[in-house]
């Protein structure tokens, strides 16, 4: 992983190091100038070891979250790189056809090139000290069957390399330990790789059959099984190795090569470091460029893709981890507020004898640094451990995915990531500590010394008016900007800031704090819980991304907590009126509610910590269930088909799918409609480009153009998300029954995969793409209808161009399944516009109900055409199972944030026992038993925890209802499914865990002797 949110990790590391150095310098300056402050900080930190441990545990969460996400990202990157490098072995670059080269402008792009090119450049490359091997090769994907075992592989690679040069690339040995010598092979002999031989049960001496073309199968004898291969592609199951000349003869491509294989100096991992240098050195030399070729950094590209995947993964997890990081920062505020409350008298006295305010800030900063640095180290380490655990669990889930056999997720930790996690965690903690310290330094000396509580003045001072006005203006600017750019996050943030700013202004006018905070709280809740129907009346075309989830969760919870805390009498009345009705519970309930509500700040913060995490998890859980139901629609995702086949090579194209099915008695289970097999064929042109004629007619970008056969047009049930008004019915749905036939009858009409359109609501984490998209102004996936979009299309193989008019967009969910990305048009258009045959690339089958093993039987029947099959229902199950597992993992990851709330309760409970020692004595004196004291304290912390959890669940459900209502405007099939059991488990589990840190203080309180307590002032 080398980037985070698009910023290089190296840049992030340097920036963090600079900031950390600055902060460290500041702290060292404090130590140098006023070492007494550092002494006080260190001694305060060690004053109560148990509490310090609790604080460090709570503070480490932010660092742990960052460390977990980095460890998982690094592991994914490492795993992909490992698989790729293991597959590519010593191979670093290839010289191959460049289908975008100007040489092929207006011409058909060939699949191979003359050996003369190799002869021309080989001497130069051989002489380069950075290159170990230069090997000419001809490779072809084929299907192979072992008649001895009846096992076959359609994804096999016939590899022909120069026997003399091959050992420079790989020094393979056979099962006897002897070096693989291609030159010694007999006329019909081949080497197989070990994995491939195992796949078809082949042993030395076996004669295997290779499908090389329409002429039937060609038999070859397995001379030996080798311990590796010269070249293998992703997904290749079996490699057949022969001398180059024999492959050229077998394929009828004498004197031709498909690639020149290059291995750089150094081992499999070190060689890739030289790739860019070699591309720069030789990429533009005439021998390569003028031949329409390119020097392609194969391994480097795979490594780059691995890094990108890791970065996306980290971005994904970091986004969801923001909730926990956010509440972690709130905990810092709470802890320092509690510490300040505890030492108020000391601080007042220190101010009295001459300590400036900045000294207090510096002292708390120093203490915060001790907690913060300690917690960052622990958090980074624990995060690594949890990250490794997450990876191991994910690995188990990934094995359920199709095509996961050749990918293993391996835990891996990068030192740079650990450093970034440590630095980020430390800086976040120290900055928040600084803010909290500044706040606590603003104490009134006299009140502090005498222990008099701060009373809010009736009318706020001028500073409040100024700050409130600034906040209101800032909010207005953000609100207007958000409205104009249709960014719902900005708009909502602006509204919230305006409310808060106006609240402060009202305070200056003398409105009581209680009323101001209540009104602000109510309005925040109302705004953020607005149903989408009302929200969309403000503006119809809002753009949304994950930031709205984060911002809205915090603000709606803050609003609710403001209302509860500032109307404590009502809350108390409700609680006493309900739970407190039981006589013996009345005093406990009263105390349980009254005391927390008296300390509004700490109680409010703790409730927010619980509520934000539970809200976010609740919304996630509901959305996961809703989308799971959506994805469970096999008919929708499969378009009515049950089996899909992917054609792996064009050696023996299927001429007529329907006829082939009809002619094969083994395929009697394929369903019939009107006597014809219910099948469909795609013929995708992958080497093609498109340009939007109305936007930028000269800007051609790569795009796949898929021709759909008449059979497919007649038998498929794939739906559409969006279409022109001509095909949109009165109820807003697209008339697929008219659109598909029109594609056939009006060649030139086209539809697109939903990924071709930009979306207003962008909750995805897809990488940026250079491929063609329909970036037309005003055109979004969420629109009700669309205008036709004209696309100029170019087939790179033949060089021919033609025009397509896009009139529809395929179903959004189906687009994520078996449908290739790009444009779709009738194959009649290909017949009319292209001078060449486009072979089938994908085939669809509708099978009779009750058919078993349909995918295996179809694969066997189409073996000679190299068709790899999937069963749609089976694939959906596998993907859903893996997705569900991963999302549950994500929920568990988000629930880590509850640790913060639990620590907060522990800190509050411990403080509460100290603050109320005298009162405990009074309670015991008037008849409270030890047990009642214990229950009183437990009940108080339970009140805070349960209110927070309940608030999170309640608000989470309300938010979920709104979110699903919004989704259903575009996706009516989405359902609101509330996973009650899961939510109940989360709620109960969270509450029980919250008791962990409160049981001990409650027990301590119950053990205080009345006489001792009454002496305590």
């Amino acid at each position: 992983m080398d980037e985070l949110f698009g910023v290089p990790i190296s840049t992030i590391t340097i920036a963090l190091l600079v900031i950390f150095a600055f902060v460290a310098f500041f702290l060292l300056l404090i130590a140098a100038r006023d070492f007494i402050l550092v002494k006080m900080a260190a001694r305060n930190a060690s004053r109560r070891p148990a509490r310090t441990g609790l604080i460090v545990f709570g503070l480490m969460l932010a660092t742990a979250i960052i460390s977990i996400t980095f460890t998982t990202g690094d592991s994914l990157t490492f795993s992909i790189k490992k698989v790729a490098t293991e597959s590519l072995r010593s191979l670093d670059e290839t010289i191959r056809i460049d289908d975008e080269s100007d040489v092929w402008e207006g011409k058909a792009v060939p699949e191979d090139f003359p050996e003369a090119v190799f002869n021309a450049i080989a001497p130069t490359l051989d002489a380069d000290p950075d290159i170990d091997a230069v090997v000419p090769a001809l490779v072809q994907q084929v299907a192979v069957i072992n008649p001895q075992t009846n096992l076959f592989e359609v994804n096999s690679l016939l590899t022909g390399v120069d026997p003399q040069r091959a050992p420079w690339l790989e020094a393979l040995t056979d099962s006897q330990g002897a070096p693989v010598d291609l030159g010694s092979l007999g006329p019909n002999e081949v080497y197989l790789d070990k994995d491939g031989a195992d796949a078809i049960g082949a042993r030395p001496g076996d004669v295997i059959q290779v499908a090389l073309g329409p002429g039937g199968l060609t038999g070859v004898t397995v001379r030996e099984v080798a311990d590796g291969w010269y070249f293998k592609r992703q997904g290749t199951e079996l490699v057949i190795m022969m001398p180059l000349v024999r492959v050229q003869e077998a394929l009828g491509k004498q004197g031709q090569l498909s690639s020149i294989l290059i291995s750089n100096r150094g081992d499999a991992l070190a060689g890739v470091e030289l790739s860019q240098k070699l591309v720069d050195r030789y990429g533009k030399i005439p021998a390569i460029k003028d031949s329409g070729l390119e020097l392609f950094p194969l391994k480097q590209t795979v490594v780059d893709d691995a890094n990108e995947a890791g970065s996306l993964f980290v971005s994904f997890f970091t986004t969801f981890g923001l909730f926990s990081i956010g509440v972690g920062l709130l905990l810092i505020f709470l802890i320092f507020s509690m510490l300040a409350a505890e030492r108020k008298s000391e601080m007042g006295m220190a101010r009295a004898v001459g300590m400036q305010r900045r000294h207090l800030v510096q002292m708390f900063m120093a203490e915060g640094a001790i907690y913060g640095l300690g917690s960052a180290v622990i958090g980074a380490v624990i995060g690594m451990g949890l990250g490794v655990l997450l990876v191991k669990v994910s690995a188990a889930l990934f094995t359920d995915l199709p095509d996961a056999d050749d990918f293993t997720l391996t835990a891996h930790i990068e030192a740079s990531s650990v450093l970034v996690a440590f630095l980020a965690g430390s800086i976040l903690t120290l900055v928040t500590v600084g803010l909290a310290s500044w706040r606590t330094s603003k104490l009134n000396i006299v009140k502090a010394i005498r222990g008099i509580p701060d009373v809010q003045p009736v009318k706020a001072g001028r500073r409040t008016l100024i700050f409130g006005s600034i906040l209101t203006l800032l909010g207005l600017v953000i609100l207007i900007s958000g409205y104009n750019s249709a960014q719902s996050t900005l708009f909502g943030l602006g509204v919230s800031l305006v409310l808060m700013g106006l609240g402060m202004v009202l305070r200056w006018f003398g409105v009581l704090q209680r009323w101001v905070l209540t009104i602000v709280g109510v309005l925040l809740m109302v705004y953020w819980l607005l149903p989408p129907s009302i929200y969309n009346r403000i503006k119809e075309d809002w753009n949304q991304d994950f930031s709205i989830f984060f911002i809205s969760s915090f603000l709606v919870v803050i609003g609710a907590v403001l209302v509860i805390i500032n109307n404590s009498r009502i809350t108390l009345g409700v609680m006493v009126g309900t739970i407190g009705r039981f006589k013996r519970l009345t005093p406990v309930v009263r105390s349980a509610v009254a005391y927390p509500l008296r300390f509004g700040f700490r109680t409010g913060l703790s409730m927010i910590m619980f509520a934000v995490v539970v809200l976010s998890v609740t919304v996630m859980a509901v959305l996961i269930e809703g989308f799971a139901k959506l994805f469970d629609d096999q008919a929708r995702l499969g378009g009515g088909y049950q089996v899909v086949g992917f054609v792996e090579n064009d050696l023996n194209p299927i001429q007529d799918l329907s006829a082939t099915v009809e002619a094969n008695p083994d395929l009697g289970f394929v369903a019939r409609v009107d006597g014809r097999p219910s099948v469909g064929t795609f013929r995708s042109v992958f080497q093609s480009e498109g340009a939007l004629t109305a936007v930028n007619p000269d800007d051609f970008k790569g795009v796949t153009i898929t021709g759909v056969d008449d059979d497919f047009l007649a038998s498929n049930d794939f739906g559409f998300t969006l279409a022109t008004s001509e095909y949109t019915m009165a109820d807003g749905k697209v008339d697929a029954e008219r659109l598909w036939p029109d594609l056939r009858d009006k060649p030139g009409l086209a539809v697109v995969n939903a990924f071709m359109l930009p979306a207003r609501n962008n909750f995805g984490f897809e990488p940026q793409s250079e491929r063609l998209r329909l970036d037309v102004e005003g055109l979004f996936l969420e629109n009700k209808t669309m205008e036709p979009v004209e696309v100029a299309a170019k087939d790179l193989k033949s060089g021919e161009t033609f025009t397509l008019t896009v009139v529809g967009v395929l179903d959004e969910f189906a687009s994520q399944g078996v449908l290739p990305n790009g444009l779709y048009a009738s194959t009649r258009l290909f017949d009319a516009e292209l001078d060449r045959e486009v072979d089938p690339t994908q085939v669809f089958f509708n099978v009779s109900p009750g058919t078993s093993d349909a995918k295996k039987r179809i694969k066997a029947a189409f073996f000679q055409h190299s068709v790899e099959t999937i069963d749609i229902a089976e694939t959906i199950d596998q993907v859903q199972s893996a997705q569900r597992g991963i999302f549950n993992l994500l929920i568990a990851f988000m629930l880590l944030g509850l640790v913060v709330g639990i620590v907060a309760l522990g800190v509050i409970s411990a403080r509460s026992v100290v603050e109320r020692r005298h009162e405990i004595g009074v309670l015991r004196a008037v008849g409270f038993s030890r047990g009642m004291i214990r229950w009183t304290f437990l009940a108080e912390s339970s009140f805070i925890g349960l209110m927070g959890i309940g608030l999170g669940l309640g608000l989470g459900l309300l938010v979920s209802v709104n979110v699903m209502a919004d989704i259903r405007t575009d996706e009516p099939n989405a359902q609101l499914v509330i996973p009650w059991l899961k939510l109940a488990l989360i709620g109960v589990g969270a509450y029980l865990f919250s008791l962990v840190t409160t049981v001990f203080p409650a027990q301590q309180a119950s053990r205080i002797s009345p006489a001792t307590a009454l002496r305590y002032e």
Partner: protein
Amino acid sequence: MASEAPIIVANDVVKTYYSGKVRVEALRGISLSVEKGEMVAVMGPSGCGKTTLLNCLSGLDEIDAGSISISGSELAKMSDDQKTRYRATKMGYIFQSYNLLPVLTARENVELPLLVGGTTPRTAREKAMTALGLVGLTEREHHYPSELSGGQQQRVTIARALVNEPEIVWGDEPTGNLDSENSAEIIDLLVSLNKKNRQTFIIVTHADVVAARAHRVVRMQDGLIVNDGRNGAGRKAH
């Protein structure tokens, strides 16, 4: 003795604060002047405003009306930083309780005003030891407050109050938490320091034995000075 300007001058000082929703007029127009080297006892019933007067005169709290000058400098014109610096370098405080920082040793507590006032650590240490010597506690320099008796803690507080050679020492019930034997020792110490160093002492107290040793007793009631004069012992300021 040449007459000097008073070190403390307060004119029509008014201070009001809120206790919950109740408005309390703690000081209702106090005028007072104190000469350099005087030991003044401020007495009165609970809630009469004597501690508030002390806090206002020393700059710990702000007044709502009137003026207070210390050595000719008006407190209202000083910023918070300036007042704090003034406290660190020219004033000493002795409170009834919560005097010492529990995480610092006796010597470190005494050093604190010097260090925050900008004195070098070496000089601060020497002066702190001298101050501890004055109160007879040099052998306790490394003890934490929790390891000292009530009387010893108060002595350390006095050492801290005097370490920066202040012009004025403010005491709020300095013997309030002590038994009679310790109280007497503390008062003897304060009187001897007042005589020796000619520092001005303003002491809020309930105890007549304390007031008896002062040069002057100011009696307050309901936020006003009701009596201000030499005490019965007639001890003169130098």
